[in-house]
């Protein structure tokens, strides 16, 4: 219980790179919003958003450098969310 918390310093350069990636992905989202991908538009937008949140969670929220237990917590939330989406789709797509 009394484990020392491991300090992990991330260089400023990494933060700036992540920030630039987020900006670029936002620009990409806005750009492709103008292109008609039909029913895939929503999935593409969500995919980019998922990549962006992965960056934020891993670097800004330090999950990448944290204990396994925090990754498990995150997984629980993600699996729950995915299950909710899948189960709701049994109504939406078969109604």
């Amino acid at each position, binding site marked *: *219980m009394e484990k020392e918390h491991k300090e992990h310093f991330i260089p400023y350069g990494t933060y700036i790179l992540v920030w630039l990636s987020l900006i670029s992905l936002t620009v990409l989202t806005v750009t492709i919003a103008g292109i008609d991908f039909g029913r895939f538009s929503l999935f593409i937008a969500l995919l980019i958003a998922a990549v962006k949140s992965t960056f934020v969670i891993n670097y800004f929220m330090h999950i990448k450098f944290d204990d396994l*237990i925090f990754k498990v917590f995150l997984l*629980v*939330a993600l699996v*729950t969310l995915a*299950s*909710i989406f899948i*189960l*709701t789709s*049994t*109504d*939406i*797509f*078969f*109604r």
Partner: protein
Amino acid sequence: MANGTLAATLENYLEYKSKKGIFAWILSTDHKRIGILYLVAMVTFFWVGVTLGFLMKLEMLTPGKTIVDAQTYNTFFTLHGVIMIFLFIIPGIPAVFGNFFLPIQIGARDVAFPRLNLLSWYLYIIGGLFAIISLFLQGGPIDTGWTFYVPYSIRTTTNVILPLLGAFILGFSSILTGLNFITTVHRLRAPGMTFFRMPLFVWALYATAWIQVVATPVVGITIVLVIIERLLHVGIFDPALGGDPLLFQHLFWIYSHPAVYIMILPAMGVVSEIIPTFAKRTIFGYKVIAFSSLAIALIGYFVWAHHMFTSGMSDTSRMVFSLLTFLVAVPSGVKVFNWVATLYKGSIELRAPLIYVMMFIFLFSIGGLTGLVLGSLATDIHVTDTYFVVAHFHYVMFGGTAVILFAALHYWFPKMFGKMYNEKLAIWATPLIFIGFNMLYFTMFILGYLGMPRRYWSYLPEYQTLHIISTVGSWILVAGLMLMFGNLIYSLFKGKPAEANPWGGVTLEWQVPSPPPVENFEEIPVVNHGPYDFSTINENKDGKS
């Protein structure tokens, strides 16, 4: 674990005064005081809910108007539901007994975030005040039912936004309490207190906390969407504006079905504490019960749409959710069989808390099994939106959670307040509650099966006999509740002093004095065995005698 005697010299949490008067309570970050704050507020709200329920049953004594008109009846059932669900049963056992006993049972001095804990109580009170203030504003009290179904909740002229905001704020209180408990269990367990040495009440609270954290935000965002739709007429749920009303039902039940497990899981944890203590033997199937709590929490997420079988969603969806619903019966059944197996060949001491637990097993089993009638697609269509559903819900929630809240009050009362209650009176209250309860709600199963719709202010004359039996049952039930609470309140002031361990329990809270000292333990205990190991206690007794 013998340091409890040393701690007896420390000042107890009720006498300790860090500040003057009421501020010593409402500004206290002591988990025990916060638990008592919740208890006082919840019992108050409970009696408001009981009064509304009592008046509703009185109204149903005759067809047509008995005491109130139809619109007032609509507000009565809505407020009864909102108060009982959001202000009583959901915070219920975790907020009072979880706050008070979780840290003590794992050998900690407090929860992980004591200030956040106090903030949770303030949010709970503010949320409750929002709901109450809405009653007195122009437009009148909300009349949507506690489920706030759209499109009615978007179109009704009664005050909807304020009580919705109240529920939103209460949601935050629930999330923060869940967060606090998860962190406390992971970070503050005493040396030697491994996960599989934790009492089953802690396991149940842990599983519940996860539901609170993961599911509650869904209802929060749904509430915000309804408010946006009411204020700005954006088409989200209202079909007239291009919205999808079934989307609301999905989102509402994605939270509100797991919320049913927020209500019942901690109660199941309390049962797993009380039975070993009064059977004087370790619980049957400790690990299976612990895992069944997690299984219920997990499967509980995936069954929400069984509330929507007649709403017009797809057939595929109905079959999937019906199947999943049946799966929940498995871990629930595991618990019931393990409790009964624990009692088998135990040295049973029939004290008040155990009598409440036995009442729970009986009522909860009826509630659970009638749930299967509602989970089957064919039978659900016959009884949906009838009194059958109302009866099922009350058997599970009142016969389940509330009866166990009473059991917990009787079990832990000596520890919390350092006083004993009159046990004869406590036991006399149980047949009144049991008979009143069954007269009130079992008749509703029959009424529902015969076709009496829920939430109706009037009914056909052929239903009257059963309604009269039900209303008389409500009088007996309320008499039983008054006797039970009266006894406890009297004992608060006039009860005999309680010993540290009046029931011969073996979990850590029974190793500290009654009431517990401010910081629970003078020295944090070192745990070297499971939570229900009665062999050491029996050996000690033999050794001493």
